[in-house]
Structure formats: structure tokens, C-alpha cells
């Protein structure tokens, strides 16, 4: 079923890009291997769920634009608050990278169960069950598709490219056109130098948290048009793939991360199908594929980025 594989490869590449590109940019600025990325995805999806239920029950229709804006704002705000409450004070104490990472794990647990509580309260307030929610159909998108003459096309085929391109465009626009954006890039390259040249590093870091978390939450919104069931475990189940891609990119080069996203999406979508039809291997080995690809990439061409980098050029050359 090559056509189906192609479609899902296309959709998953966009999804992974929307999460890993902001993740790598965020790492270069904040130096935090951030596990709360999983919460950003889930919070994006659940803002869409709560908004969809509320708007359907009181207005009878919902809107993707409003969902995107509110999930961007909600998730961005949470990220800024978590920076001010946890990561900024820790960074000021010059802690090692591992401590920042473990702090992001503690925050991941807290944010995850706060979401379970919020969906609990919403469920009993609206007397329905929101812990798992069905696929969301956006009315303003269906208007768009009808007018564009693509009637009957799966919503995800429109929403995924729309949001992915929008998020990449926003990122490009902010980073290259605006003064603040250039400051973000400067801090990304060298925060000491940036602060010397008069950039308010603190404000830029907060903006980066807001921007990257907001963009990541778009992946959660995209997910609601694609998956048959949305649960609070959405972000957690994507986190290992997302980190695999980020590490292939060495947590530093955006182009190599983009290539990693295409590679992993290709392996997952084509690999599973081909192996199962031609070699009869069970599809249950799919997660194994992802990790064997990572191990292969690490051994064949270890990335030289911040996270990678051979500790020393230590090659055992020929004797004579």
C-alpha cells in the first residue's frame, strides 16, 4: 500500500519537524534537555479538546484558528512560568546540565498529572468523559476545503501542512526579520557574547521558551485531526521518537535535525510495511526500527554538535 505509506510519511515528517526544530533551537538557547516537550504536545491537544467540546455545546461549531491561538498562548505561558519558577533560578546557580534535565523530568510529572486533574474537573463539570476524546473535525477547515474544491479529503491532509508551514514561517519570520529574533539567534550561538553586546538575555530566553513551546503545541493540535483517540498519554508516547531525531541532529544543527525527522518518519512508515509484507516480520517491531536507526547513525557518523562531539579526535591511524 505504497500510496498510504507515502501519505503517512508526509504527515509524520511534518509532525516531527514541528516538534524537533523548536526543541533544538530551545536547547541551544536554554541548554536544557527538556522532557516537558511531551507536556507541550499534550497541552496543545487538550486545549483543542476542551475548546472543541465547549464550542460544540454552546455555539454548535468550532474553529481551528481559535484553537491554534489559544493552545499557542496557553502552552507558551506554561513554558515561560516553568522557566521563571524552575530553570532560571537553577541556571543562575550554575548547575550542571544533568540537574537541569532531572528538573525537567520532575516538571514533566507535575504537568502531566495537572492535566489529568484538569480533564477530571472538566469531565465532571460537563458530565462527560474527556480523558479520551474522539478525532476532532474543524468546521472552518471543512469550509476551506469545500471552497478549494478538495471535498472529501481527510482533514489531516490539510491541517498538517497548514500548521507545519505556518510554524516554520513564524519561526523564520521572527528569527530573521525582527530585532528580538536576531537576539535569540545571538544568544543561541553564544550567550556570554550576546550579554556583553547589550542583549537582555533574560528577556530573550523567556521569549524563546514562549515561542518554542507555543510552536510545539501546534503538533498537539495537528494530532487531534489525525488520531482516532486523543488521550493524556499522547505527548509521552512521541517523546522517544522526538529525542531520537533531536540527537541525530546533535541537538545543534537544524538541517541535520530536519534530515533526522525525514529519516525516522521514513523508516517507521515504509520500514514496517515492507518488512511485514516481504519478510513477514510482525509490525510490533516498529519501535525497534527507530532505535536501531539511531544506534546505526551514532556509530556510523556521530554528530559533532553540542550534545554529540567526539571527546577527542582519537583515531587509530595506520601504523606506517
Amino acid at each position, binding site marked *: 500500500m505504497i500510496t498510504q505509506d507515502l501519505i503517512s510519511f508526509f504527515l509524520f515528517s511534518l509532525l516531527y519537524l514541528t516538534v524537533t526544530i523548536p526543541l533544538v533551537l530551545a536547547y541551544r538557547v536554554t541548554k536544557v534537555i527538556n522532557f516537558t516537550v511531551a507536556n507541550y504536545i499534550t497541552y496543545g491537544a487538550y486545549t483543542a479538546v476542551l475548546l472543541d467540546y465547549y464550542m460544540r455545546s454552546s455555539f454548535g461549531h468550532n474553529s481551528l484558528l481559535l484553537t491554534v491561538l489559544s493552545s499557542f498562548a496557553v502552552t507558551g505561558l506554561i513554558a515561560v512560568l516553568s522557566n521563571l519558577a524552575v530553570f532560571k533560578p*537553577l541556571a543562575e546557580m550554575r548547575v550542571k546540565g544533568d540537574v537541569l534535565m532531572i528538573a525537567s523530568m520532575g516538571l514533566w*510529572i507535575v504537568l502531566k*498529572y495537572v492535566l*489529568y486533574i484538569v480533564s477530571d474537573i472538566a469531565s465532571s463539570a460537563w458530565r462527560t468523559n474527556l480523558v479520551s476524546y474522539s478525532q476532532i473535525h474543524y468546521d472552518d477547515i471543512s469550509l476551506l476545503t469545500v471552497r478549494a474544491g478538495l471535498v472529501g479529503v481527510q482533514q489531516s491532509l490539510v491541517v498538517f501542512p497548514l500548521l507545519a508551514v505556518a510554524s516554520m514561517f513564524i519561526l523564520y519570520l521572527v528569527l530573521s526579520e525582527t530585532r528580538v529574533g536576531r537576539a535569540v539567534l545571538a544568544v543561541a550561538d553564544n550567550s556570554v557574547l550576546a550579554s556583553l553586546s547589550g542583549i537582555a538575555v533574560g528577556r530573550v530566553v523567556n521569549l524563546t521558551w514562549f515561542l518554542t513551546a507555543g510552536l510545539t503545541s501546534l503538533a498537539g493540535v495537528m494530532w487531534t485531526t489525525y488520531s482516532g483517540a486523543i488521550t493524556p498519554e499522547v505527548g509521552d508516547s512521541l517523546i522517544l521518537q522526538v529525542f531520537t531525531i533531536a540527537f541525530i541532529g546533535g541537538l545543534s544543527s537544524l538541517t541535520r535535525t530536519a534530515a533526522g525527522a525525514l529519516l525516522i518518519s521514513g523508516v517507521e512508515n515504509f520500514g514496517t510495511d515492507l518488512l511485514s509484507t516481504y519478510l513477514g516480520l*510482525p509490525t510490533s517491531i516498529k*519501535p525497534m526500527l527507530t532505535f536501531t536507526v539511531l544506534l546505526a547513525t551514532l556509530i556510523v557518523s556521530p554528530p559533532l554538535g553540542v550534545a554529540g562531539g567526539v571527546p*577527542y579526535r582519537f583515531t587509530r591511524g595506520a601504523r606506517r
Partner: protein
Amino acid sequence: MIDVLGFLITLTTYIGIYLVLSLTLTLEVSSGITNFGKVAFYGLGAYTGALIGTYLPLAITGSRASPFDVNGIQLLYTISKSNPVLDLSVFLLSLAAGFAVSALFGLLLTYPIHRVGSALVGFTLLSTGEVLRLFYLNTEPLGESKGFMGIPNPFAWLPQARGAEALYLIIVWCFVGLTYFIVSRIMNSPLGRILKGMRDDELVALYAGWPTPLIKSKVLALTSGFTGVAGVLWAYYFTSINPNMFTPSLTFNIWAMVILGGIDSIVGGVLGTVLLASVDYAARFVIPFIGTTLVTPDYLRWIIVGLVMLVVLLKKPEGLAPRRGGVSKL
């Protein structure tokens, strides 16, 4: 009324098994090995123990039954109830085999990891753990998704459960003592200083004349061996294991315990382990009695565990009991 003795025995058994893991991780972290694949060696030990604990008694009693169908499992229960000698010898054999298999695996794994940076070392080991878990899930002789059941607890032949639990606790804490002795002896010695040098600047350690890849592989082999032993202790305590018990969340818990205690600090690692394990277990006795039915009270327990981690990190970033510097103890 709370059965305080039962509470303490269960809690200290969990703390004991976690301590073997966090002490070995403390040594690994202080020698620059960011081991995100702790659960891989842990699972390897558990599966080695389970394989020996089920196939061997069945083979010895000459029965044809496989350890995955009902009568095989019933036979294992009756065997473990009736002859103590077989139980104990199978248990000791599993501990030795668990150590050997995990140590060998640790040795093999140093090759791919000593050529990449520390965060990547972590992720390589993490993915190896996941590959292993999926290997168990798709291998018929390892029980696939059923996993193993009826692993004979070494003290199953004892009449009352309390006695068996207490004896098992003693065995667990023997290994805690052994691990503590080894980790503290190594860290408080010239080798400990070399390991810390390797972690901070591997090139300088090399120029000081120390073959850092060889030292790393020896350390990882030793710590992986003890992680495998912890896996065997876990498998025989649970008497049933399956692949989904060995997910990365266990590794992150152990990391949280070590970082909470303070890197390089053995006492800190112990404190971090005792704190987190106790909060997680003891909260079960308080949380369900908060009267709200609007929200599941148990979610609060998870939030408390997360908040404790954050508060301790923010208040004492260098950890609960940071290691005072100074020359290694003469």
C-alpha cells in the same frame, strides 16, 4: 490499624533494591558514564534469573511442561513450596548468572559509547534498553508478552509470609552493603580521583597516562553486574516478570534519586533514594483518605513526588549531602 512492621519490611525492601541501583549509578556518573540505560542491565539480570528460576526446576524434576502454560506454572509453585534446597541453590545460581550476563553486556557496550559525547552516551544506552525490551517481547522462549510466572521465591517453603519477607529483606540488604562497600572503596581512592578526572576532562586524564576507555569499560562492567543482581533480586521478589516492567521510567527514577542526593556524593545518593522511595510509597497511606471524589486523589501523589524533586533541586542544587572536596581519605 496500620501493620507498621509489614509497612517497614516492604518499604525497606524497595529502598534496598533501589539503593543497589542508585549506588552503582553514583559510581557511573562520577566516572563520566551518563547511563540512561540502567533498566537494560536491570532487565537482563531479571530475565537471566527468571530463565534459571523456571526452566531449571522443571528440568530437574524431569517434567515436560513449559513454564508458560498453566500446569507448568502450578508445578513451579508446588516445587518452590516443597524443597528449600532447590529454591536456595537456584536463587544463588541466578544471582551469579545475572551478575555475569549483565557485566559482559556492560563490557560490550563500552565500544559504541566511548566515541560520542555524554548526552549521546545516555541516549545510546537508553535506546539499547528499549531494543532489549522489544527483543523480550518478540522472543518465544522468553515468554513474549506473557513473560515469566512462578519464579520460586527462595523462602517460599517457609510457613508464614512474614518470615519469608524478613529473610528476603536481609538478603537484599547484604547486597546493599556489598555495593556500598565497593562503591565507597573505589570512589575514596586514587582510582576515584582518576574517574573524576575522566568525567571532567577525559583528554587530561589521557595525558596523565590513564587508558580511559579501558577504565570506563571495567567500571561499567562492574556496575552493570550489580545492576543485573538488583534485577535478579527484583524478579525473585515479584516472582513474575514481563517486558513492560523494564521501561525507561525506572531509569529516570534512579537518576532523580542520585541527582537529588548530589553528584559524586555516596551519602547524598543514599539520602535521595530513601527520600523519593519513601514519599512515593508512604503517600499511598495518606492520599486515598482525602475526601474529594471530584478529582482522583492519587494524581496528587504523583504531583507531590514531582514537586519534592523540584523543591529539593531548587533549594539545594548541589544535592542533599554534597561531597566535601579534599584529598582522598588517607
